[in-house]
């Protein structure tokens, strides 16, 4: 029986829960589910949607532009992932050892993380500019004739990768630093007693015990890399000559430039499926290299 007190309780739960739950349902869960529906239609928002079944998916999977975008996204990921992870690992290990001013430097390396992508993209576009760019000037000082960077189809993606590594390194460094600080001190003491050198400690204590954090950083970085968008949009808008066109940029262009809502939704689901596939694969593969427990 719902008595007076019962209704008061319902009201109380509603009062506390609804300010988050209602927007969650309306602006996250509903669009998520609706997206599947939209992906099965042809809809330009001017006329009512027409059900077309899986045609959009077939179109996306056979579209050479999508293939190019996916290839470029993978190219971005293959360049970005190792650089950002190895860089972050190096800095994190150094910052975790005895060092002058480690808090200060941690802040410096983290600064690009709080900067918006638009600023990062503009800034690196200028640094790497073939005309007046400081990077090519500095390369010139050591006798290297710098490339055209983002104006050159061969160098445009590397330019985006460089800017992205600079922006994200501090974030990954912090995840790894948290992992490093969780390694129990007594293991190092035991290794010292056993006569282990500094390199041996790094190789046989630090790295194995850090693998869960590395896996975590790697999965997050991978998911982020598949969704690369802001920096591409501002630095090259997919150019020059389609050299940096990526999947999310195609989704946005399809939906909001060409009015292909159905195809854009289908493309975003294909991307999500690929991300999921890669994540599951990594989680499967982790048993080979990730070390759990102490």
């Amino acid at each position, binding site marked *: 029986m719902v008595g007076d007190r019962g209704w008061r309780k319902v009201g109380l739960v509603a009062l506390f829960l609804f300010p988050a739950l209602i927007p*969650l349902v309306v*602006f996250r869960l509903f669009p998520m589910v609706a997206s599947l529906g939209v992906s099965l239609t042809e809809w330009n928002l001017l006329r009512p949607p027409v059900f077309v079944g899986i045609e959009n998916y077939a179109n996306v999977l056979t579209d050479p532009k999508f293939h190019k975008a996916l290839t470029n996204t993978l190219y971005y990921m293959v360049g970005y992932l190792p650089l950002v992870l190895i860089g972050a690992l190096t800095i994190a290990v150094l910052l975790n050892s005895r060092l002058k001013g480690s808090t200060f430097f941690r802040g410096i390396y983290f600064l690009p993380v709080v900067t918006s992508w638009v600023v990062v993209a503009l800034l690196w576009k200028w640094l790497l500019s073939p005309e007046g760019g400081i990077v090519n000037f500095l390369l010139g000082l050591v006798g290297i004739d710098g490339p055209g960077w983002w104006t050159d189809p061969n160098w445009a993606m590397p330019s985006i990768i460089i800017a992205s590594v600079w922006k994200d390194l501090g974030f990954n460094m912090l995840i790894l630093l948290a992992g490093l600080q969780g390694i129990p001190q007594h293991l190092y003491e035991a290794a010292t007693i056993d006569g282990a050198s500094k390199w041996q400690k790094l190789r046989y204590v630090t790295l194995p015990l850090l693998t869960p954090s590395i896996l975590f950083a790697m999965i997050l970085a991978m998911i982020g890399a598949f969704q690369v968008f802001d920096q591409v949009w501002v630095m090259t808008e997919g150019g020059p000559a389609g050299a940096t066109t990526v999947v999310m940029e195609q989704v946005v262009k399809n939906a909001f430039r060409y009015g292909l809502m159905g195809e854009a939704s289908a493309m975003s689901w294909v991307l999500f499926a690929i991300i999921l596939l890669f994540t599951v694969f990594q989680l499967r593969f982790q048993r080979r290299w990730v070390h759990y427990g102490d």
Partner: protein
Amino acid sequence: MGTESRAGVWVRTIIIALGGVVFLFPFVWMISTSLTTTGELFKLPPQLIPNPVDTSAYERLFTQVPILRWVLNSVGIALSVTLLQVLSSAMAAYAFTRLNFRGRNAIFVLFLATLMVPFQVMIVPLFIELRYMGLLDSYAGLIIPEMAMPFGVFLLRQAFMGLPRELEEAAFVDGAGHVRVFFTLVLPLSKPAVATVAVFSFMGSWNNFLWPLIVINSPELMTLPLGLSSLSSRFVTDWNLLLGGATISVLPIVAVFLFAQRYVLQGVAMSGLKG
């Protein structure tokens, strides 16, 4: 143990410092460029300290471009989003930890589930939804869809679970209700976690680009990132003006970061969840 050599400490410090210079230099160069005259921009060798120091790029930003409006838009939207997200997340976290109701765990799993699905899967229907609601090209269109913050709910739920219950029980005995306990006990006692969520929420909103890009058309409703990117196609090689705008948009967030560094770093370390 003292076996480690002091030389080793210095070698590592120097390596880290050199890397730090590489990381900091782009910011220095950004400010330097913004204070360079258009004539000096492409001159070689480039000057680290501009000669003459010139503020005309900033003057042009404030006269030819509605940058002040963009700053105010960004501040207003980021503050509104932060307030709404912190309050709604904290209240939901209170419900999940202090109120007993049927389906509590199932509803919490719903919040977690949306954390797993990337935003890109929802943007098209969300855009269409807002179009039907008449919220496109409006402040409301930037604020209202952001009201729920699953990550905040998750983080505050953890924090609230860790609080000792004795004070609350004493308050209930004294006749206080849940609303009073929430506002006068639970919220103040969880200040570090609340601050972490607030800082993340503010940074997320301040730097958001994709959503404003889709929703906003009118120049006077743009946020800073969107406005800046619109400038880059209008003033293609006016690097002093573009980087002046970048400087203006970086300063507030750097200030927030320096002021709240502890909470930012703690938040990443605790969860490592991005965006």
